[in-house]
């Protein structure tokens, strides 16, 4: 079956295109939209990996809440297009090629590594074990302390946002 492969490459192309658009776009809203594109493509990839719940959470939290906040703030401030500044010559002529070289090297290493050749079993295979029930059991038994810690983190974040957003006297 070629189906999963086609879906994978379609989503991969969408994700990479979204990431490139994020860089190229000068209007912040366009950047936000392209990031949403990346997130939706990744959610489909999670589905392909058989992680239904993660996929849904990705859409609800990232695309449905965090990015809405971004769009909201961009609309609220409405500062218009981004200023272009000339970054340093060294970065332009040395940094970018070096970065690409590093990327290709890391990609090659990942591709040839031992873990890389393992087949990512996902939707349709026998071991679709990532059911929501198993995931919640893991989360609320083994990782209970971490879970509580993140809830404290969220509380601190709420307080921080409140203090920052409060009208200064």
């Amino acid at each position, binding site marked *: 079956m070629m189906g999963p492969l086609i879906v994978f490459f379609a989503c991969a192309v969408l*994700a990479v295109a979204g990431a490139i658009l994020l860089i190229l776009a000068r209007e*912040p809203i366009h950047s936000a939209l392209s990031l949403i594109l990346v997130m939706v493509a990744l959610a489909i990839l999670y589905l392909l990996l058989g992680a239904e719940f993660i996929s849904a959470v990705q859409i609800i939290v990232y695309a449905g809440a*965090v990015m809405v906040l971004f769009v909201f703030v*961009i609309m609220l401030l409405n500062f218009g297009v981004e200023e*272009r500044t000339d970054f340093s010559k060294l970065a332009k002529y040395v940094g970018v090629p070096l970065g690409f070289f590093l990327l290709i090297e890391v990609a090659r290493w990942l591709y*040839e590594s031992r873990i890389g050749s393992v087949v990512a079993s996902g939707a349709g295979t026998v071991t679709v074990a990532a059911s929501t029930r198993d995931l919640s059991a893991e989360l609320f038994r083994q990782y209970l302390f971490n879970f509580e810690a*993140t809830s404290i983190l969220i509380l601190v*974040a709420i307080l921080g946002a409140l203090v920052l957003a409060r009208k200064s006297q």
Partner: protein
Amino acid sequence: MIIPVSYYLVLSGILFGLGVVAFIFKRNVIAVFMSIELMLNAVNLAFVAFSRAHQQLDGMVFVFFVIVVAAAEAAVGLAIVIMMAQNRESLNVERVNLLKL
């Protein structure tokens, strides 16, 4: 079924790299923030792929924590952005070169 983990890892690496590039090149604070989110997303993809490869759920649980941290970060970060916009009347990161106004 026939997709090896390496494909996901390479995609994750590419997305992370693009996130770094965006982080360095973007001048708008909000866009810089978004590039951080892009990097976190790339890492999440690698986590889920590893989790499937090892047939263990720990990777997916970690993705939850990453998402929670990203949401908390967005809340505080955007509050800071709004403060900055009110105080400097610009969103350009290069204008934010003083610790105090």
